[in-house]
Protein backbone atom coordinates (compact mmCIF):
# COMPACT_ATOMS: atom_id res chain seq x y z
CA UNK A 1 0.00 0.00 0.00
CA UNK A 2 2.77 2.40 0.94
CA UNK A 3 4.52 1.63 -2.37
CA UNK A 4 1.38 2.56 -4.26
CA UNK A 5 1.08 5.77 -2.31
CA UNK A 6 4.73 6.51 -3.04
CA UNK A 7 4.08 6.05 -6.78
CA UNK A 8 1.04 8.35 -6.64
CA UNK A 9 2.88 11.07 -4.73
CA UNK A 10 5.94 10.79 -7.00
CA UNK A 11 3.72 11.13 -10.09
CA UNK A 12 2.06 14.22 -8.64
CA UNK A 13 5.42 15.67 -7.65
CA UNK A 14 6.79 15.15 -11.18
CA UNK A 15 3.68 16.73 -12.70
CA UNK A 16 3.97 19.75 -10.42
CA UNK A 17 7.69 20.06 -11.18
CA UNK A 18 7.14 19.78 -14.93
CA UNK A 19 4.40 22.39 -14.98
CA UNK A 20 6.52 24.67 -12.80
CA UNK A 21 9.41 24.29 -15.22
CA UNK A 22 7.09 25.01 -18.13
CA UNK A 23 5.93 28.19 -16.43
CA UNK A 24 9.53 29.34 -15.97
CA UNK A 25 10.60 28.52 -19.54
CA UNK A 26 7.51 29.95 -21.23
CA UNK A 27 7.13 32.97 -18.96
CA UNK A 28 8.14 35.31 -21.76
CA UNK A 29 7.07 32.96 -24.54
CA UNK A 30 5.36 33.98 -27.75
CA UNK A 31 3.06 30.95 -27.78
CA UNK A 32 5.06 29.11 -30.43
CA UNK A 33 5.77 25.41 -29.98
CA UNK A 34 8.72 24.54 -27.79
CA UNK A 35 9.48 21.14 -29.07
CA UNK A 36 8.36 19.13 -32.04
CA UNK A 37 9.02 15.55 -33.00
CA UNK A 38 10.98 15.12 -36.17
CA UNK A 39 12.82 17.60 -38.34
CA UNK A 40 9.83 18.86 -40.33
CA UNK A 41 9.39 22.66 -40.37
CA UNK A 42 6.79 23.62 -37.75
CA UNK A 43 3.79 25.66 -38.89
CA UNK A 44 2.12 28.18 -36.57
CA UNK A 45 -0.36 26.59 -34.16
CA UNK A 46 -3.84 26.30 -35.72
CA UNK A 47 -5.75 27.78 -32.81
CA UNK A 48 -3.88 31.04 -33.12
CA UNK A 49 -5.71 31.78 -36.34
CA UNK A 50 -8.95 33.40 -35.32
CA UNK A 51 -10.31 36.56 -36.82
CA UNK A 52 -6.94 38.21 -36.30
CA UNK A 53 -4.37 37.92 -39.09
CA UNK A 54 -2.02 34.99 -38.57
CA UNK A 55 1.54 35.86 -37.58
CA UNK A 56 4.31 34.78 -39.96
CA UNK A 57 5.72 31.26 -39.67
CA UNK A 58 8.64 30.81 -37.25
CA UNK A 59 11.05 30.32 -40.15
CA UNK A 60 10.19 33.63 -41.74
CA UNK A 61 10.40 35.76 -38.63
CA UNK A 62 12.80 38.61 -38.91
CA UNK A 63 14.42 40.11 -35.89
CA UNK A 64 11.14 41.59 -34.69
CA UNK A 65 9.63 40.07 -31.54
CA UNK A 66 6.63 37.81 -32.17
CA UNK A 67 3.21 39.14 -31.10
CA UNK A 68 1.60 37.69 -27.95
CA UNK A 69 -0.98 34.91 -28.35
CA UNK A 70 -4.56 36.16 -28.60
CA UNK A 71 -5.94 33.75 -26.00
Amino acid sequence: MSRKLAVVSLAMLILAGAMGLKTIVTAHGDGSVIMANGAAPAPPTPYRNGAAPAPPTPYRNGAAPAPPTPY
Partner: protein
Amino acid sequence: MPGPFALFIWMVGLFCETAVVVCALKKRAFRRYLLLNLYMASAVLSELGRYKILTEYGFASKQYQYFYFYSDAILTIFLYFALCTLYVHVFSEMKAERYVKMGTLLLLAGTALFTYAVVEQSSAKLVTHFVVDLSQNLYFVGLVLTYVLWAAILKLRETRTRLIQLVLSLGVYFSLFAANYAIRNLYPSLSSVFVPLVQVFGLFLPLAWAYAFWRLPEEARLVPARLAVIPR
Protein backbone atom coordinates in the same frame (compact mmCIF):
# COMPACT_ATOMS: atom_id res chain seq x y z
CA MET B 1 7.21 26.04 -49.22
CA PRO B 2 10.13 25.99 -46.76
CA GLY B 3 13.57 27.00 -47.99
CA PRO B 4 16.24 24.60 -49.27
CA PHE B 5 18.03 24.51 -45.89
CA ALA B 6 14.84 23.50 -44.05
CA LEU B 7 14.08 20.86 -46.68
CA PHE B 8 17.63 19.50 -46.50
CA ILE B 9 17.50 19.21 -42.69
CA TRP B 10 14.10 17.57 -42.97
CA MET B 11 15.37 14.93 -45.39
CA VAL B 12 18.45 14.27 -43.22
CA GLY B 13 16.08 13.85 -40.25
CA LEU B 14 13.97 11.37 -42.17
CA PHE B 15 17.10 9.43 -43.11
CA CYS B 16 18.33 9.37 -39.47
CA GLU B 17 14.95 8.19 -38.15
CA THR B 18 14.90 5.38 -40.69
CA ALA B 19 18.51 4.56 -39.73
CA VAL B 20 17.48 4.04 -36.08
CA VAL B 21 14.90 1.40 -37.02
CA VAL B 22 17.24 -0.28 -39.51
CA CYS B 23 20.15 -0.33 -37.02
CA ALA B 24 17.90 -1.76 -34.29
CA LEU B 25 16.65 -4.47 -36.63
CA LYS B 26 20.17 -5.26 -37.84
CA LYS B 27 21.55 -5.48 -34.28
CA ARG B 28 18.51 -7.45 -33.06
CA ALA B 29 17.50 -4.77 -30.59
CA PHE B 30 14.11 -4.00 -32.10
CA ARG B 31 12.04 -6.08 -29.71
CA ARG B 32 14.13 -5.26 -26.67
CA TYR B 33 13.48 -1.54 -27.15
CA LEU B 34 10.14 -2.02 -28.87
CA LEU B 35 8.46 1.27 -27.98
CA LEU B 36 11.55 3.32 -28.81
CA ASN B 37 11.63 1.73 -32.23
CA LEU B 38 7.89 2.05 -32.70
CA TYR B 39 8.24 5.73 -31.88
CA MET B 40 10.93 6.13 -34.55
CA ALA B 41 8.94 4.09 -37.09
CA SER B 42 5.87 6.23 -36.48
CA ALA B 43 8.06 9.35 -36.76
CA VAL B 44 9.14 8.17 -40.21
CA LEU B 45 5.52 7.58 -41.25
CA SER B 46 4.50 10.94 -39.86
CA GLU B 47 7.34 12.72 -41.72
CA LEU B 48 6.26 11.08 -44.97
CA GLY B 49 2.66 12.14 -44.34
CA ARG B 50 3.75 15.68 -43.52
CA TYR B 51 5.80 15.87 -46.70
CA LYS B 52 2.91 14.63 -48.82
CA ILE B 53 0.49 17.14 -47.29
CA LEU B 54 2.99 19.98 -47.52
CA THR B 55 3.65 19.38 -51.21
CA GLU B 56 -0.07 18.99 -51.89
CA TYR B 57 -1.55 21.85 -49.87
CA GLY B 58 1.40 24.11 -48.99
CA PHE B 59 3.19 25.15 -45.83
CA ALA B 60 0.65 27.72 -44.64
CA SER B 61 -2.36 25.47 -45.30
CA LYS B 62 -4.76 24.38 -42.57
CA GLN B 63 -4.25 20.78 -43.65
CA TYR B 64 -0.53 20.92 -42.94
CA GLN B 65 -1.06 22.74 -39.64
CA TYR B 66 -3.60 20.24 -38.35
CA PHE B 67 -1.74 17.18 -39.59
CA TYR B 68 1.52 18.49 -38.13
CA PHE B 69 0.18 19.19 -34.63
CA TYR B 70 -2.08 16.15 -34.34
CA SER B 71 0.68 13.81 -35.52
CA ASP B 72 3.08 15.58 -33.18
CA ALA B 73 0.80 14.93 -30.21
CA ILE B 74 0.61 11.24 -31.08
CA LEU B 75 4.40 11.10 -31.43
CA THR B 76 4.88 12.81 -28.06
CA ILE B 77 2.62 10.24 -26.39
CA PHE B 78 4.67 7.49 -28.08
CA LEU B 79 7.88 9.12 -26.84
CA TYR B 80 6.43 9.35 -23.34
CA PHE B 81 5.68 5.63 -23.30
CA ALA B 82 9.10 4.89 -24.81
CA LEU B 83 10.71 6.83 -21.96
CA CYS B 84 8.68 4.83 -19.45
CA THR B 85 9.96 1.57 -20.93
CA LEU B 86 13.48 2.87 -20.22
CA TYR B 87 12.35 3.09 -16.57
CA VAL B 88 11.29 -0.56 -16.78
CA HIS B 89 14.77 -1.46 -18.09
CA VAL B 90 16.56 0.47 -15.35
CA PHE B 91 14.36 -0.90 -12.55
CA SER B 92 14.15 -4.41 -14.00
CA GLU B 93 16.18 -5.95 -11.17
CA MET B 94 13.91 -4.39 -8.56
CA LYS B 95 10.85 -6.01 -10.15
CA ALA B 96 9.09 -2.66 -10.16
CA GLU B 97 7.47 -3.02 -13.59
CA ARG B 98 3.96 -2.94 -12.12
CA TYR B 99 4.63 0.28 -10.25
CA VAL B 100 6.28 1.92 -13.26
CA LYS B 101 3.24 1.11 -15.41
CA MET B 102 0.91 2.44 -12.74
CA GLY B 103 2.93 5.65 -12.40
CA THR B 104 3.07 6.06 -16.19
CA LEU B 105 -0.70 5.90 -16.61
CA LEU B 106 -1.31 8.06 -13.55
CA LEU B 107 1.06 10.75 -14.77
CA LEU B 108 -0.43 10.69 -18.26
CA ALA B 109 -3.94 11.00 -16.84
CA GLY B 110 -2.82 13.79 -14.51
CA THR B 111 -1.19 15.70 -17.37
CA ALA B 112 -4.29 15.30 -19.54
CA LEU B 113 -6.56 16.51 -16.72
CA PHE B 114 -4.30 19.47 -15.99
CA THR B 115 -4.18 20.38 -19.69
CA TYR B 116 -7.96 20.16 -19.98
CA ALA B 117 -8.41 22.32 -16.88
CA VAL B 118 -6.20 24.99 -18.49
CA VAL B 119 -7.57 24.92 -22.03
CA GLU B 120 -11.24 24.79 -21.09
CA GLN B 121 -10.88 28.49 -20.32
CA SER B 122 -10.46 28.96 -24.05
CA SER B 123 -13.75 28.75 -25.89
CA ALA B 124 -12.44 28.45 -29.45
CA LYS B 125 -10.95 25.31 -30.97
CA LEU B 126 -10.95 23.44 -27.68
CA VAL B 127 -9.87 20.07 -29.07
CA THR B 128 -7.00 21.49 -31.10
CA HIS B 129 -5.89 23.64 -28.21
CA PHE B 130 -6.02 20.59 -25.96
CA VAL B 131 -4.01 18.43 -28.38
CA VAL B 132 -1.23 21.01 -28.84
CA ASP B 133 -1.04 21.84 -25.14
CA LEU B 134 -1.07 18.18 -24.09
CA SER B 135 1.86 17.59 -26.42
CA GLN B 136 3.80 20.52 -24.93
CA ASN B 137 2.97 19.55 -21.33
CA LEU B 138 3.99 15.96 -21.93
CA TYR B 139 7.25 17.28 -23.32
CA PHE B 140 7.98 18.98 -19.98
CA VAL B 141 6.91 15.89 -18.05
CA GLY B 142 9.30 13.90 -20.25
CA LEU B 143 12.08 16.36 -19.52
CA VAL B 144 11.66 16.00 -15.76
CA LEU B 145 11.23 12.21 -16.01
CA THR B 146 14.46 11.92 -17.98
CA TYR B 147 16.42 13.76 -15.31
CA VAL B 148 14.84 11.66 -12.58
CA LEU B 149 15.82 8.54 -14.53
CA TRP B 150 19.34 9.85 -14.97
CA ALA B 151 19.59 10.38 -11.19
CA ALA B 152 18.34 6.82 -10.67
CA ILE B 153 20.98 5.53 -13.11
CA LEU B 154 23.69 7.28 -11.12
CA LYS B 155 22.31 6.10 -7.78
CA LEU B 156 21.84 2.49 -8.89
CA ARG B 157 25.25 2.51 -10.59
CA GLU B 158 23.77 1.32 -13.85
CA THR B 159 26.47 0.00 -16.15
CA ARG B 160 24.66 -0.88 -19.40
CA THR B 161 26.31 1.47 -21.90
CA ARG B 162 23.56 1.35 -24.50
CA LEU B 163 20.85 2.08 -21.96
CA ILE B 164 22.87 4.97 -20.53
CA GLN B 165 23.44 6.37 -24.03
CA LEU B 166 19.70 6.16 -24.82
CA VAL B 167 18.69 7.94 -21.62
CA LEU B 168 21.41 10.55 -21.75
CA SER B 169 20.70 11.46 -25.37
CA LEU B 170 17.03 11.86 -24.51
CA GLY B 171 17.95 14.23 -21.68
CA VAL B 172 20.18 16.31 -23.97
CA TYR B 173 17.47 16.33 -26.65
CA PHE B 174 14.78 17.66 -24.29
CA SER B 175 17.17 20.16 -22.72
CA LEU B 176 18.25 21.58 -26.10
CA PHE B 177 14.65 22.54 -26.95
CA ALA B 178 13.96 24.07 -23.55
CA ALA B 179 17.21 26.06 -23.58
CA ASN B 180 16.61 27.22 -27.15
CA TYR B 181 13.08 28.34 -26.36
CA ALA B 182 14.12 30.17 -23.21
CA ILE B 183 17.05 31.92 -24.95
CA ARG B 184 15.08 33.03 -27.97
CA ASN B 185 12.39 34.52 -25.75
CA LEU B 186 14.93 36.26 -23.55
CA TYR B 187 16.75 37.63 -26.59
CA PRO B 188 14.16 38.07 -29.37
CA SER B 189 16.74 39.76 -31.58
CA LEU B 190 18.53 36.41 -31.87
CA SER B 191 15.41 34.53 -32.95
CA SER B 192 16.59 34.46 -36.58
CA VAL B 193 19.45 32.23 -35.34
CA PHE B 194 17.64 30.19 -32.71
CA VAL B 195 14.38 29.46 -34.54
CA PRO B 196 15.98 27.48 -37.40
CA LEU B 197 18.05 25.63 -34.78
CA VAL B 198 14.84 23.93 -33.55
CA GLN B 199 14.76 21.94 -36.75
CA VAL B 200 18.46 21.03 -36.47
CA PHE B 201 17.93 19.85 -32.87
CA GLY B 202 15.33 17.42 -34.22
CA LEU B 203 18.23 15.49 -35.76
CA PHE B 204 19.99 14.91 -32.45
CA LEU B 205 17.83 12.12 -31.03
CA PRO B 206 17.71 9.87 -34.12
CA LEU B 207 21.46 10.35 -34.62
CA ALA B 208 22.27 9.48 -30.99
CA TRP B 209 19.94 6.48 -30.96
CA ALA B 210 21.21 5.19 -34.31
CA TYR B 211 24.73 5.41 -32.89
CA ALA B 212 23.62 3.60 -29.70
CA PHE B 213 22.08 0.73 -31.66
CA TRP B 214 24.82 0.50 -34.28
CA ARG B 215 28.01 0.95 -32.28
CA LEU B 216 27.17 -0.10 -28.71
CA PRO B 217 26.47 -3.78 -28.16
CA GLU B 218 23.91 -4.79 -25.55
CA GLU B 219 26.67 -6.47 -23.49
CA ALA B 220 28.84 -3.32 -23.33
CA ARG B 221 29.31 -2.05 -19.79
CA LEU B 222 30.61 1.20 -18.33
CA VAL B 223 32.71 1.30 -15.21
CA PRO B 224 30.40 2.92 -12.59
CA ALA B 225 33.20 5.14 -11.32
CA ARG B 226 33.33 6.80 -14.72
CA LEU B 227 29.77 8.04 -14.32
CA ALA B 228 30.03 9.66 -10.92
CA VAL B 229 31.28 8.93 -7.47
CA ILE B 230 28.36 8.78 -5.07
CA PRO B 231 29.17 8.00 -1.45
CA ARG B 232 26.99 5.27 -0.01
